[in-house]
């Protein structure tokens, strides 16, 4: 078993690290204060080809794959989990089209998404349900060659940023008659709703998407009618969950760096607190959580790259890395003492950001439900 990364992956990590420190780090304070996405950062990411990491080369991407995507998001989220989350959701929007679309749809949408000329997102959650995707109330009725979609989506990442929304809607009376559609934001009837004010991940957009008699051509149906949950969950499983897990890795990295730096600098009882066993154990726990999470996340990505079924492994990676990020952020706060509560220190930001990863792309309870299918099957 070879755990080493390729030269390509190592160079990618180095470049993403430099990008994060050079381009994103100077924006973090402003993002915290304004909750606004720095669009110049998005443009820089697009210029470096970061939007098309998993889109095949013949469709305008680089096709570097899922493991490369994890490394990239990890390094971005190390500096800003908000940017990491926004980026990973753009991949998820494109991934739903890549995984569920036909050749015509892929050729029509993916080249622009790969280069960042346009942004995509996936809109499933509604007030009636997110974890239960069959509970949605948005409807799509076929009249002639057009579907008329009406409904309201909530907690949608990149809600106001994305040009293309992949939305689920009810297309029949049966409980499982859900279909997925590509909706361009220029379609009459589409409009962004409320932009949420979040406790963490400030700077990434989460908000409502409203569809009022939004007419889309039937060519925009992704996959077959009635297969919408499969298409949407396919995107969430292959892109949304690993991407969220990689954001957890980024926070874990940030926590380990912040905790060790502070512990070495802070003097108590005449010596750095890093020499106190209680502090060492906390740092050790963060280190162990990072290492364990990384193994789980990278393995899941490797399975995706090698076209293996990986639902349980992805769920395990998402569950563990995000829960670990919350644990690590708490310990980082503890190590910092009162300083950890101050805005000048990143510890409090990690704490607020990490918690938001838990509900994204399926809560920890949902991940447990997915994981347990494997041993019980």
């Amino acid at each position, binding site marked *: 078993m070879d755990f080493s990364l390729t*030269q*390509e992956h*190592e*160079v*990618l990590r*180095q*470049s993403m690290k*430099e*990008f994060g420190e*050079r381009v994103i780090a100077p924006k973090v304070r402003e993002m915290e204060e304004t909750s606004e996405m720095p669009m110049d950062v998005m443009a820089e990411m697009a*210029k*470096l*080809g*970061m939007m*098309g*990491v998993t889109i095949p*080369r013949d469709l305008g991407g*680089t*096709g*570097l794959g899922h493991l*490369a995507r994890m490394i990239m998001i990890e390094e971005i989220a190390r500096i800003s989990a908000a940017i990491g989350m926004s980026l990973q959701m753009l991949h998820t929007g494109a991934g739903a089209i890549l995984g569920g679309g036909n050749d015509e749809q892929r050729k029509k949408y993916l080249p622009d998404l790969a280069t960042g000329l346009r942004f995509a997102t996936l809109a499933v959650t509604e007030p009636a349900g997110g974890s239960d995707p069959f509970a949605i109330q948005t409807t799509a009725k076929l009249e002639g060659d057009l579907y008329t979609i009406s409904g309201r989506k909530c907690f949608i990442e990149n809600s106001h940023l994305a040009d293309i929304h992949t939305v689920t809607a009810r297309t029949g009376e049966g409980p499982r008659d859900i279909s997925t559609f590509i909706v361009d934001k220029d379609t009459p009837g589409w409009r962004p709703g409320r932009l949420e004010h979040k406790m963490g991940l400030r700077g990434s957009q989460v908000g409502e998407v409203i569809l009022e008699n939004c007419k889309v051509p039937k060519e925009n149906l992704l996959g077959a009618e009635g297969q919408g949950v499969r298409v949407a969950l396919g995107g969430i499983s292959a892109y949304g969950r690993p991407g969220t897990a990689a954001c957890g890795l980024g926070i874990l990295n940030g926590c380990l760096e912040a905790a060790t730096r502070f512990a070495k600098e802070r003097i108590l009882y005449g010596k750095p607190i890093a020499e106190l066993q209680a502090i060492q154990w906390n740092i050790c726990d963060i280190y162990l959580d990072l290492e364990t999470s990384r193994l789980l996340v990278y393995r899941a990505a490797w399975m995706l790259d090698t076209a293996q079924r990986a639902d349980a492994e992805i769920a395990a990676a998402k569950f563990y890395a995000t829960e670990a990020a919350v644990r690590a952020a708490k310990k980082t706060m503890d190590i910092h003492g009162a300083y950890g509560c101050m805005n000048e220190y990143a510890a409090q930001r990690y704490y607020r950001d990490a918690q938001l990863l838990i509900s994204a792309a399926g809560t920890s309870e949902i991940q447990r439900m997915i994981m347990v299918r494997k041993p019980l099957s």
Partner: protein
Amino acid sequence: MKIVVCVKPIPDPSYWARLPLDPKTHTLRREGIPNVLGLLDKCALEEALRIRDSCGGKVTVVSMAPLSTLGTLYQTLAMGADEVVLLSDRCFAGADTLATSYVLATAIKKLGQYHLVLCGDKSLDVGTGQVAPQVAEFLAIPHVCHVLKIDLLDGGRVRVKAKTDDGHIILETDLPAVLAVHRGINQPRLVSLMGLVAAREREIKVWGASDLEVDPARVGLVGSPTQVAQVFAPQRRRRGELLQGEAEEMVRSLMARLEQAGVMPT
């Protein structure tokens, strides 16, 4: 325009605090420490890529380093270099700047025609700043250090702006020449994902002593007139001393101590 860029993989500066010194070999123990390219080396490569992109030509990166640095050098391909030549041989180990420059210059000659050799002013780890001038001497071509700006002129000449202690100086010289670039000449590009894919098509050649036909007496430790006598981590201890007495007496005492410490201008 054929441009050669000399680079040196160095231990990642973020690990320097834990780089142990070997008291026997007087070298750093680099096991487990990742290598990176220094900023000035990347500036030199960036300048080369910009010249190539505007004038056409080819950028070849040359580095004398262990084989374990292949991954680090891959970064230069991903940034856009056309080819990389790694000069690696056990007999090159322990080289000082003179022996290093000799090997680099020999490799540059072997590459054939070239118009420009670009280097960083100095490496980030050792920082002697000697390699670029020495390479130029071995190649018997002009060199300019501390370069802040490069303008290619007609007739095979180049105009450069170089930093001096008091400001800057504008110089012109014939090509080929060796130019050692200073911090601030440019902002090196980040490796793009497209660059990573493009690098798959490019090559890293490895040349050893036999490929270069170097004089064995002039390479590595045996070819190095500079020998490291001692290597140690500086002890940073502060010691306060209270001077007492009349002001004039204390000033005189202070001046004497400063002179003794060698910090007074002569």
